[in-house]
């Protein structure tokens, strides 16, 4: 968290052309990732969390997406970069791990070919040296028998092993930034624990900045230094992981936390209370509401401006800290605390989803 940040994103906006009209998928996102820091981007499907990082690396189809704002990776703006330079940056600058370990690897090439290819694209190692380096990398991500694994095909490996290979490829050029997009969502919890441990270990060794995109608030609590909650293409709340998860301010964050079945404290007098729910469904990016983006689903709506004006991200509590806790809401009710097991329980029990869009 010291020195120059690895990544500085400022006012990132992404508009996609769709058959149903323009979709504002990301609407003004700003954050920084420091060396050795893990920033978790949390949101439900359609919140724009994945698109926002695909946009950073120029991985959105250019004819369809319009990306504005700036994103400086170690001082260099990714968004205005020439395509050939961007390709150079993708390996050593920023590595990426996607959700599906089944489809991220080419099924007809051996693991060795794919790892070596990644190494050779950004270095002048000869084939034999690159292969030795590949074996080292596989050992580093904890694959048993790294030499043997090099000659195997993706289908011969389990999901967890495949995801390790993908992490090895992403880390092969010692990137300053690692982006993990739902990297453990498809894995079992015991394997997820292994992968999270691995990433934390490698990050500590190398000082890599990590952006961890997930919908799982449990994973966030375990790995993140800082959390960004996204909704409708906006950051609605950010701050340190303790601030956001223990002391959430935005009604959406509160709703999301209340909706989680909690292994830690379920029964009250032998009766498990119903979960709090956020009524309705997230808005379509082609059809964002006027006013506060969460307004149509918000159970509070305590302010006249809710319906008309998008609230800016404002600092909650002290601004004199490294990472101020910010939220974009007109809601001023702050009476609930971390001690309450029913954070956001005010949202009422089972609420039917709204009518059809």
């Amino acid at each position, binding site marked *: 968290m010291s020195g120059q940040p690895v990544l500085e994103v400022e006012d990132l906006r992404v508009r996609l052309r769709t058959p149903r009209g323009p979709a504002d998928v990301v609407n003004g996102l700003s954050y920084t990732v420091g060396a050795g820091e893990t920033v978790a981007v949390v949101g*439900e*499907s359609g919140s724009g969390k994945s698109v926002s990082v695909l946009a950073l690396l120029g991985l959105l189809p250019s004819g369809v997406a319009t990306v504005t704002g700036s994103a400086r990776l170690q001082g260099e703006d990714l968004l205005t970069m020439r395509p050939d330079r961007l390709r150079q940056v993708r390996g050593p600058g920023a590595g990426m791990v996607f959700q599906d370990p089944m489809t991220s690897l080419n099924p007809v090439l051996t693991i060795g070919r794919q790892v070596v290819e990644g190494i050779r694209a950004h270095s002048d190692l000869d084939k034999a040296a690159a292969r030795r380096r590949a074996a080292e990398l596989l050992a580093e991500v904890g694959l*048993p028998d790294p030499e043997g694994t090099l000659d195997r095909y993706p289908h011969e490996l*389990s*999901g*967890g*092993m495949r995801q390790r290979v993908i992490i090895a490829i992403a880390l092969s050029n010692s990137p300053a930034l690692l982006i993990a997009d739902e990297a453990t969502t498809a894995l*079992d*919890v*015991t*394997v*997820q*624990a*292994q992968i*999270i*441990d691995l990433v934390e270990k490698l990050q500590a060794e190398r000082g890599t900045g990590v952006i961890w995109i997930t*919908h*799982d*608030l*449990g*994973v*966030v*609590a*375990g790995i*993140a230094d800082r959390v960004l909650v996204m909704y409708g293409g906006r950051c609605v709340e950010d701050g340190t*992981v*303790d601030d956001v*998860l*223990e002391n959430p301010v935005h009604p959406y964050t509160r*709703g*999301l*936390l*209340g*909706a*989680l*079945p*909690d*292994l*830690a404290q*379920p*029964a009250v007098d032998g009766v*498990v209370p*119903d*979960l*709090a*729910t*956020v*009524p309705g*469904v*997230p808005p379509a990016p082609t059809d964002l509401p006027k006013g506060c983006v969460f307004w149509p689903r918000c159970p509070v709506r305590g302010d006249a401006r809710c319906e008309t004006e998008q609230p800016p991200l404002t600092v909650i509590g002290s601004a004199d800290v490294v990472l101020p806790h910010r939220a974009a809401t007109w809601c001023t009710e702050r009476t609930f605390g971390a001690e309450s097991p029913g954070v956001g329980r005010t949202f009422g*029990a*089972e*609420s*039917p*989803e709204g*009518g*059809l869009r």
Partner: protein
Amino acid sequence: MSGGDVLVSARGLEVHFPIGGGFRRKPAGVLRAVDGVDLDIVRGETLGLVGESGCGKSTLGNALLRLVPTTGGTLTFDGTDLTGLQGRRLKELRRRAGMVFQDPFASLDPRRTVAQTVSEPLEVHGLRTGRDKATRVAELLELVGLDPGVAGRYPHEFSGGQRQRVGIARALAGEPDFLVCDEAIASLDVSVQAQVLNLLRRLQRQLGLTLLFISHDLSAVRHISDRIAVMYLGRVVEIGPAEAVGTDPQMPYTQALLSAVPLPHPKLERERKRIVLTGDVPSPAAVPSGCRFRTRCPYVFEPCDDVDPALQPVGAPGQQAACHLHGVVGTPATTPEGVTATP
């Protein structure tokens, strides 16, 4: 085992699939998806079935409804033997036992309207016709929290949560006693998961359903279940009251599974010790001899190699675990096929 009236009962239930093979070709091996499951589901309870992918929990759920053929053991539903059930009696089972599937985008026929989907059980079993049928469909849609006005629409016009409600309405149309929810919330967003969980709980109470809730999500299972059964490699390795299994698990696998569940409490997460299992789950085509968890178990000792542990009462009342740490009970490994563990 808690008292009460057992609705579904499995003894030594096996579902084995041949690997490869076909017309005049010998199968290359056997996949032991469900491999000797003993399970009683009590009328009116919600039993949670957890386990990781490939442990056979879905296959077991399907086998209980005779949606996959069983290859061994016995299975009864309300006293009726299900193995070998045919024709009209099998059809009656399908009315009395419903299923909710994982992916609400795949489990509804895209070419049929909500009304057509929900009314299918009514038509199949000849329960309602004409105007009665339409009234019943409206009733069912209201029951699951949908506006009956949407009956004429196609699935693609709905969100995931709404589709799942349609799936639940279909499963309830035949007024079943027993409902199997196979990863019914796994494909939904967190806030929608909560809606569906609450709905299932309400329906279970309101209709007096017996619920088998299959999921890989321990938090959700803990939330909804009265009892929890943990599966590993085709076998139930621990079962007991949700509170007991959730707070004081007796089987090392359950302990590891619980410790690996990430909790949304940063402070707790930092203090918590995680039992990280090494290696992967062995293939159900090559089940280790003796205890099937021994290749990943941190406490492995001699009897584990040779003796296949049986469920035995340990911990809280009604809790059972299959582990030699609580005394060596089980059948010695004398499998003639010579199935050995892969390290």
